[in-house]
């Protein structure tokens, strides 16, 4: 192919490209919403990107979400029928009156369905407003003795979470005993080790 035919052969391509570009220019800008960025309060959990530390992540959940309300089962109930809680939500759980000005209840948490693979274990962080006693036992064995947390501590969260209880859990379903406590309800946010809901 000669240089001349090469040049002529390229002409329609260039022309077509230019015509296409010109055609694309025909119209308005795309419809993506434009605007400035909102403000964030970095101390309150109200941040756009969920923090990856467990306490910060739990605080973020409280800021972002409307709590889910539910009623705990009584301690004598079969754990398999207790209301189930999972990662990634804030719960306000009403407790049962023990008749002595204290309250308690049972909920169910399936660690196996919440990101713990078979055969492994993981630290699961329970965050609450007050120092509420928690204990766990296998949901499948109502006669098992409840086990208290491996550690407890305090956290800072401007939304009001202040206490942390940490359990090492396997990929099993657990009955979680709450109380006895003076409060008629318990607020609970559950976060796995590392923070993100599916970590």
């Amino acid at each position, binding site marked *: 192919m000669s240089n001349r*035919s090469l040049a*002529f*052969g390229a*002409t*329609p391509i*260039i*022309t077509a490209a*230019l*015509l296409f*570009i*010109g*055609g*694309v*220019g*025909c*119209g*308005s*800008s*795309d*419809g*993506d*919403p*434009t*605007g*400035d*960025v*909102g*403000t*964030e*309060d970095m101390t*309150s*959990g*109200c941040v*756009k990107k969920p923090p990856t530390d467990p306490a910060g992540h739990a605080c973020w959940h*409280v*800021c*972002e*979400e*409307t*709590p889910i309300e539910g009623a705990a089962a009584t301690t004598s109930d079969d754990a398999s029928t207790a209301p189930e809680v999972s990662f990634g939500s*804030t719960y*306000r759980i009403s407790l049962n009156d023990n008749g002595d000005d204290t309250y308690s209840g049972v909920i169910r948490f399936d660690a196996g369905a919440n990101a713990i693979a078979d055969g492994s274990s993981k630290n699961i962080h329970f965050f609450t*407003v007050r120092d509420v006693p928690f204990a766990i036992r296998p949901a499948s064995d109502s006669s098992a003795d409840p086990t208290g947390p491996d550690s407890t501590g305090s956290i800072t969260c*401007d*939304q*009001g*979470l202040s206490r942390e209880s940490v359990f090492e859990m396997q990929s099993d379903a657990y009955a979680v005993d709450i109380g006895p406590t003076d409060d008629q309800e318990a*607020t609970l946010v559950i976060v796995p080790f590392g923070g993100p809901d599916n970590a």
Partner: protein
Amino acid sequence: MFTYFKPWWQAGLIAVALALTTTGCSFTDGEPWGSLNITLTSQTSASDLVGASDVTLDASTIPLEVEVVRVTTTSGGGGGEFDPSDPPAGYTLCHSGHCHSESGDLVPYDEVRAEMQSGGGTSEVTLARRTTEIDISQPFSTTAGPMAIGSRGDVSEVHVQSPNVVVNGEIRRNGDRIPLVVRLGPISLGHLDLEEVTVGPDSPKTRSVSLCADWPDPLFAGVDLDGLETQEGQILITKIVNADAAASIIDAFENVNWKTSCNA
């Protein structure tokens, strides 16, 4: 066939193409069809807004996000994945983020996708968003804008929300002044349906829309002040602490009525 074109013919074609490239068609590439300035006003006094004589609020800046939204009513798209190379029924060509409808409109991809995935009924597309702020402790007037609208057609609604409401103040109880901290996180502050606001070649390039707040429920009217729990010398109200009070205040914010005029 180009092989037989004379050189001057080719030069002419290229010149036409270049002219189209640099001028677009009838309007400038990348410019919006129009822009809106949204002004939010509240003439309600602080005491009327609070609605509880034992509560006073400090100057408390609240960030607001103002969105203009197009609500489209469709007869149903029948589902399926949106593929720009295979425009759905009613569209002839999709490229560069928009589709050419048979009516001649340019419709953004997300609107076409929403229409396809709707089973009929209505779909909402946010056309533009701006952030501004108000001081909730006094009457306010603030403008969000200019909000560039890149898609012609009706602007159906203005939505107002806050990404994070934090209000400080104090509550008087038995002669004591107890510091008050209200942290509600992101909440909605309602919306206004717009009438006859259209963006396009036959509409004004810039338009102003006024929204005036009417607060049917004072913020603290539904709060049991005596029942608020005090911790460490202050009253904290969040979604989990004094939660019923928080829910009542959030409802009051969400129930705000926006009118197009404060004189209406």
